């Protein structure tokens, strides 16, 4: 441990909690996500002043107000773009983006995929509740087909995005999923995302108890978890269910499929490898469930090393500085053809 690290003050959750009253609806899944983040922070070995939470618009976007760090509540969908500028300008900071399914995947879809493909050093928490909460209950880009909402009285016609698939399609270097009913799992995944150099996207299944209550209870409730959540653990065969009776294999014809372990044998199971360069297997895993009604993988889908964008940007600057010396304004103004008038 370096000297600088030893000087980092010991903190508790209270130190990371701002003086602002939390104003989410009682029972909102956002509370448990906030707790998980506030509880995680003291373990990360960082200073509060070096942390910035950047958010867009939506219920989730109020998050920065509740953290005793630097924070910026910006405009709808643009948080990844604003965070990109901040992260490039200030590589010394830990920049988090807090977003929702509408913010990140609808109005801000473009910024999300470009931040991910560039691999900017930001940690993105995507609160997915499959509904627009702040505008009081319209369907979102992750809502299921047929969903009846205020703006779709006859049912939604839109095919939904799967955020993990989208992120993998954008070749994100870190992609994970967790849910608001399991604090321990959230803290573990958030911690991994924080440690990752580059863009990290974590989808969090989050319950909106007012406009979309129970959207995930079919897989995340205590009674259902064992049979409905597929934990991904690096280096281990992918198994789930009572007595780990079920598993995932890579079938040459059908891709990743769920099987009874008894039918195929343990050796046939797919061993999870987060570090595969090719995102195809991770993508197949992301397609195992067509929605939160079928067995759904959670955990880290992909964690690969790729040069972080800000590092590359700053390397070019350092190289230019090294090869051409520090900028000389006088010389710049005289870099074209010049002539003297007596």
């Amino acid at each position, binding site marked *: 441990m370096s000297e600088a690290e030893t000087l980092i003050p010991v903190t508790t959750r209270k130190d990371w909690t701002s003086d602002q009253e939390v104003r989410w609806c009682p029972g909102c899944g956002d509370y448990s996500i906030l707790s998980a983040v506030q509880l995680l922070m003291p373990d990360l070995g960082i200073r509060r002043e070096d942390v910035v939470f950047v958010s867009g618009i939506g219920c989730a976007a109020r998050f920065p107000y509740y953290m005793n760090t630097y924070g910026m*509540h910006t405009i709808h969908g643009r948080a990844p*773009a604003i965070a*990109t500028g901040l992260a490039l300008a200030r590589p*010394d900071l830990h920049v988090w983006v807090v977003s929702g399914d509408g913010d990140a995947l609808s109005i801000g879809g473009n910024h999300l995929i*470009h931040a991910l493909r560039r691999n900017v050093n930001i940690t993105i928490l995507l609160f997915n509740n499959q509904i627009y909460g702040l505008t009081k209950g319209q369907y979102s880009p992750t809502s299921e087909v047929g969903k009846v909402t205020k703006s779709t009285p006859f049912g939604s016609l839109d095919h939904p995005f799967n955020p993990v698939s989208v992120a993998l399609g954008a070749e994100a270097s870190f992609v994970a999923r967790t849910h608001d009913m399991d604090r321990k799992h959230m803290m573990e995944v958030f911690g991994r995302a924080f440690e990752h150099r580059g863009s990290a996207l974590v989808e969090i299944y989050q319950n909106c108890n007012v406009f979309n209550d129970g959207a995930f209870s079919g897989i995340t409730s205590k009674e259902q978890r064992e049979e409905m959540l597929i934990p991904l653990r690096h280096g281990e065969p992918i198994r789930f269910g009572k007595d780990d009776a079920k598993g995932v294999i890579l079938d040459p014809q059908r891709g990743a499929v769920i099987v009874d372990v008894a039918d195929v044998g343990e050796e046939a199971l797919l061993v999870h490898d987060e570090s595969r360069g090719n995102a195809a297997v991770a993508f197949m895993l992301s397609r195992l469930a067509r929605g939160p009604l079928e067995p759904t993988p959670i955990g880290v889908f992909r964690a690969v090393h790729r040069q972080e964008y800000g590092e590359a940007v700053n390397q070019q600057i350092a190289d230019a500085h090294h090869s051409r010396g520090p900028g000389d*304004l006088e010389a*710049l*103004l005289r870099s074209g053809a010049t002539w003297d008038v007596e």
Partner: protein
Amino acid sequence: MTTECAKGGAVSDTAKRARPVETLDRVVIRFAGDSGDGMQLTGDRFTTSSAVYGNDLATLPDFPAEIRAPAGTLAGVSAFQVHISDHDITTPGDAPTVLVAMNPAALRSQVGRVANGATIIVNVDSFDDRSLSKAGYDKNPLEDGSLDGFTVYEVPMTSLTKGAVQPLGVKPRDAERSKNFFALGLVSWMYTRPVERTLDWIEARFGKSPQIVAANIAAFKAGHAFGETAELFDHPYEVKPAPLPAGTYTNITGNTALAWGLVAASQLSGLPLFLGSYPITPASDILHELSKHKNFGVRTFQAEDEIAGIGAALGAAYGGHLGVTTTSGPGMALKAETLGLAVNLELPLLVIDIQRGGPSTGLPTKTEQADLLMALYGRHGEAPLPVLAPRSPSQCFEMAIEAARIALTWRTPVILLSDGYLANGAEPWLLPDVQDLAPIEVSFATEPNHVDAEGNASFWPYLRDPETLARPWALPGTPDLMHRIGGLEKEEGSGNVSYEPANHELMIQIRAAKVAGIAEHIPDVVVTGDVDRADLLVVGWGSTWGAIDGALGRVRQLGHKVAATHLTHLHPFPTNLGEVLKRYPKVLVPEMNLGQLAHQLRAEFLVDAKTVSKVRGLPFTASELEQAILDHLGGLL
């Protein structure tokens, strides 16, 4: 071919000329050809030769939006106009006195612009039936007498170029491509331009391909020799150097001056420069130029869209960089929401709009000044911010610094309105002494500024400087100053989210007062011409300055009493503007829009400001404004 050999041969310099040289005080030359003919390069090179020779000059590149419209058509004509002079000039000239037309389409599209009696040099090789018909000519204009009012020189540029270049082993098809250098050589001879630097430049520019260097030099020499030896031209002309103030000069376009001004602002403020930008004509050259200067610590970020461009710049500004975004009209529209956020966050940010013809895609490569009201008002809610506009290509340098000074001092987004004409137009620039540039003072918050009810020190992000009303700028990473900002209305002082009606009104008034207060810290407007007693005041802003200046001189020479003032600060206005406007019986406002500044002046000062409007994608000429001023003086309007 070696360099020495390339530079030897037929190229002669002025001193050795056998024939007499006629001296002109000025000349306006327009090069026109197909988009692929290299007319911009030719014009640009002729300009540099003239600049280095010591002429005063102004240029007007005029090119189509299409990269390569069908060859030989009117749509594909690309032109470059340069005005060179032995005296101080401010415009690229009214009607060209010399037109170089590389094909029938160039002739047809440009002949209406040239002065009566002008010299027209055509590449006669391209006047075949097919090219004539593509240009829409039924008859050959070189034969039907339609050009009788001009002095026409028919020069077989294509065949002479091929003849000069093919012996070097260049393929016939490629050989023809050097014909713009033939034209450059010929015009360089006609106007006794120094040739050495052009030959050096060809080598530097095309150095990677020795054959192209050799071909272009051979074509240039052939053109030069043609002028010297052909009996076509009786004698060359000379435009003597202009008596400009002493010092070192360079030839500069508005976009380059802006880019350099931003680098200077970064150095003067000690803040790293961060440009977030999305490519758009005619602003992209600023991104290109800044991306070269990483050794100045400049970060250029080509964003996924216009919104991300300004967003990233704002994020960088929050982190303590000098955040800048560059764009043109369509991009400005997309940035409006983020500009509103920047107004609320009260962070410094520069937004540079290189205006072009609109609305929508409009005329992407042509100039206009129709974004003024958008810059002033184009945001939802009450979102005032300072708006500035440079008046000439070289003044873009100091206006970039001025915009940064205002943004950093008052913690506000600032819009700088340039336009396509300033962006691409060039003029000689007397280089400033870098040591004389005033530093921009920037202070960051380092300590708590408030004590809470329990007696604990805390930081209030909206506790303002009583003088400027700017809020403190606390950078992330500063211990003990953690705070949250955002687009929701803030409580004055504490910066907490507030929905209080009275607080919202107070904050709106404070933000407006903060921007209005900048007026006390900007220069007064200066009146030129018949300052003490004039019958009419011309008020301009932005790139119309050159044409207004030229027109004012002409009208005064006719014996009229007229004055002019030119605004570089459009919001807030200089404090003496109201008094100046009321001093003169008539106020005339030339603008490349339908009267946006006039609208502002009428609204703010209750003066009967009249508009002279031009929205043709082209700048005003001095003679157009001369006529407009005379019309208004005569009481006809």
